[in-house]
């Protein structure tokens, strides 16, 4: 029987890099096929080719056994191929319905027929159990719902082959479960799905078969019965993976971060952090677990002085830092690895060197009396590039042209090198491949050894379970419970993150 999708010997090169190198991908009718690989392995590129956004340099594509020429998304749509993109493709000012019908608008004598559109959307969302409000503006709906809109877009176009590019990266554990349900339902409706993800767990939960790609080449294509997580992980990176574990003994030193009854409003003036208290001691990693949107971002922004504190106190190393300027707080000993490396962590159009002194450019020895000392700066840069093994032609290269993982390394180097008393790390490994993750985890543990206090915020439960000495679970803006990783389970954490607190909770 013919494959739903068969991509033969696809090659695609970008300036300076071959993204896809003789890739062959075969997806059976009615299966969920996982595409698994490091960042930059070439997954998105391959899918963008399948969807007609890029043209392959070589190779051919067969859809349901028939040769297909896909030069733009229209062709893909006509062939029944739909794609849910890694970065959502939604127009925030438009309503859900408008976003879905865009490009194939129902009309009555040349005019938009919105009523019909709304009806269609309602029917679709009922049929597939994708609950959305057609008349709501996209800017006002949750990420999870936005993703449902993306899926509906493809269904509205009658796609029977759906591509999901890293759909779970932006989702909370609960939403992830829902999504997996939805995908199974779609398959049972006779659709075929290609799922891109970095998360082994999901692959084994959701998929039938998997194709592993590394640096643009297909390593293997096998059904999940025949393999196991470790094997896949090794295939992906091409070597033995040894995940870092926090095996250091836990002996907290003096209090470094002390947050008391903190209340912070979010941009919509709603209490995002609500009477929250926590402390972090030297020589410990405090993991903050929680579903996205429970106040993590606001908490960190408050600590780093990026957001006004409504009430409460923040003390760093015994000094009151409540509502002080970021610069002052940094100087008081805060190191900060922000959530969005490209937007907040780096000046992409600065050189690597300039980025490495982004926090210290105005201090001796990098500057005297307002005059920069280029020599010292580049010397320092070269040293850090060496030390943190940042893969870059040199310190004069623009940060923009660095790869995601290497960009993150630059930030870590900058923040850790200042050896701050308190290191706040938000999603430090999001979207990175296992190699880079290893490296960064290693650095965090080193700092702990040095007796620094580390506040680690992450949506990846296993990351927290691996690294944290204590886990503070945040729910609706306050710490619902603090648990010991050695004695807790994903199940318990899941419940806490969902707001269910057990009666006999440990201390």
């Amino acid at each position: 029987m013919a494959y739903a999708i068969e991509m033969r010997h696809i090659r695609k090169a970008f300036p300076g890099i071959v993204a896809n190198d003789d890739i062959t991908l075969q997806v059976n009718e009615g299966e969920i096929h996982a595409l698994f690989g490091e960042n930059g392995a070439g997954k998105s590129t391959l899918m963008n080719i399948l969807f007609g956004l890029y043209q392959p340099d070589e190779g051919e594509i067969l859809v349901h056994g028939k040769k297909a020429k896909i030069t733009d998304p229209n062709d893909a749509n006509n062939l029944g191929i739909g794609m849910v993109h890694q970065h959502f493709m939604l127009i925030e000012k438009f309503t859900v319905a408008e976003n879905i019908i865009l490009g194939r608008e129902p009309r009555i004598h040349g005019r938009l027929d919105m009523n019909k559109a709304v009806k269609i959307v309602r029917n679709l969302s009922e049929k597939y159990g994708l609950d959305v409000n057609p008349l709501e503006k996209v800017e006002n709906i949750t990420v999870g719902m936005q993703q449902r809109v993306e899926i509906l877009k493809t269904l509205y176009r009658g796609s029977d082959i759906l591509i999901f590019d890293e759909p779970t990266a932006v989702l909370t554990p609960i939403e992830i479960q829902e999504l997996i349900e939805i995908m199974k339902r779609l398959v049972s409706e006779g659709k075929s799905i290609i799922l891109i993800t970095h998360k082994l767990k999901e692959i084994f939960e959701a998929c039938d078969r998997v194709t592993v790609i590394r640096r643009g080449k297909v390593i293997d294509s096998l059904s999940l019965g025949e393999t196991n997580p470790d094997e896949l992980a090794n295939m992906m990176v091409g070597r033995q993976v040894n995940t870092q574990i926090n095996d250091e003994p836990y002996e907290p030193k003096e209090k470094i971060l002390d947050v008391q009854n903190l209340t912070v409003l979010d941009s919509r003036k709603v209490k995002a952090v609500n009477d929250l208290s926590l402390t972090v001691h030297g020589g410990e990693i405090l993991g903050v677990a929680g579903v996205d949107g429970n106040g993590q971002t606001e908490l960190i922004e408050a600590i780093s002085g990026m957001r006004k504190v409504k009430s409460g106190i923040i003390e760093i190393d015994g000094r009151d830092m409540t509502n002080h300027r970021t610069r002052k707080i940094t100087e008081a000993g805060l190191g900060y690895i922000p959530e969005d490396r490209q937007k907040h962590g780096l000046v992409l159009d600065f050189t690597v060197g300039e980025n490495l002194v982004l926090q210290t450019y105005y201090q001796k020895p990098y500057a005297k009396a307002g005059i920069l000392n280029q020599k010292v700066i580049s010397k320092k840069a070269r040293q850090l590039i060496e030390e943190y093994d940042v893969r870059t032609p040199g310190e004069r290269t623009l940060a923009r042209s660095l790869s995601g993982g290497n960009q993150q390394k630059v930030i870590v180097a900058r923040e850790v090198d200042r050896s701050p008393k308190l290191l706040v790390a938000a999603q430090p490994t999001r979207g990175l491949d296992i190699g880079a993750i290893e490296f960064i985890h290693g650095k965090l543990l080193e700092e702990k050894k040095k007796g620094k206090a580390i506040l680690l915020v992450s949506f990846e439960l296993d990351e927290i379970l691996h690294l944290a000495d204590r886990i503070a679970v945040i729910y609706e803006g306050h710490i619902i419970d603090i648990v010991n990783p050695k004695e807790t389970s994903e199940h318990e954490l899941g419940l806490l993150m969902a707001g269910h607190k057990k009666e006999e909770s440990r201390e």
Partner: protein
Amino acid sequence: MSGLLKKVNWMTLVVPLVSVFLGLLCGALIMLAGGYNPLLAYGSIIQSIFLQPYYAGETIRAMIPLVLAGLAVAFAFRTGLFNIGVEGQLMAGWLASVACAIELDGLPRIILLPLSIIAGAVVGGLWGYLPGLLKARFKVHEVISTIMMNYISLYATAYIIKNFLYTEGERTPTIPASASLASNFLANITQGSRLHWGFIVAIIGVILMWLILWKTTMGYELRSVGFSPDASKYAGMNVGRNIILSMAISGAFAGLAGAMEGLGTYQYMTINSAFTGIGFNGIAVALLGMNTPVGVVLAAALFAGLQTGGLTMQSVAGVPVELIQIVIALIIFFIGSSYVIKWALLRFSGRGRN
């Protein structure tokens, strides 16, 4: 990789040259279409500005405000801002310097002259400060706000002159000699052109911009905020302050340009019923100069030469002066399309690479 970098640098030099060439070429074609003789026309320009001291002098004179206006635009560009308001800031600075010179007549030269120049810079700076403030506080896009400020400046300066500094001939009184940049010496060696000491100010401006942007922490912050306000904020910089600062400095350069006209070229300010055009030319100069101080000087030289020479071209080859403006416009278009020019050049030089 380093090879690729070299190619890029090579590009940044070639693109402006190609653009200028193409601009002049199109200009020639237009002249042919109009039945004029391009060789005679361009010849007359070169002949006049290189062989006749008067026009050489006038060219340098015209360069002075162009350089400063160009620096103003370039400086803002470097910090991620597009200052279309140079025109208005220039007029504000022009009036301020002239007013200062007239009102404080009697002060000794060593005080009055610098004071008048600074007055121009300060008021020009203020005129840039406001859009900066609006952007920092209310996210008002500077392109729009500076356009609005241009017209406010145009009408306001006219009103002030009319009502407070008026004299026969629709202008302010002439400034006292003690505040003048004009120089008989310079005039004499250039057959009585209006060349004045302002060129020193322009040179200082060029050096200043270079120092500020690349040698100081202030410049580091300005560029950082220009490239990425968010990252700068996370790095503890005061984004708003830097935006305002940048616009103010840019405006100050523009104000200086105005002061040069007021204290140097004219010795007074006329009631302008339309814009001087210097500000808009400044945009072209900055772009052609790739927003680098030296580039700005070279670009200013080209445009000043074209405009001064254009007058000779009019009388010798009979070509309407508007042609010069057309050529300048075309050059901007070509510079703006550098992406295509690079692409084309790479195609041509492509054979060499695999």
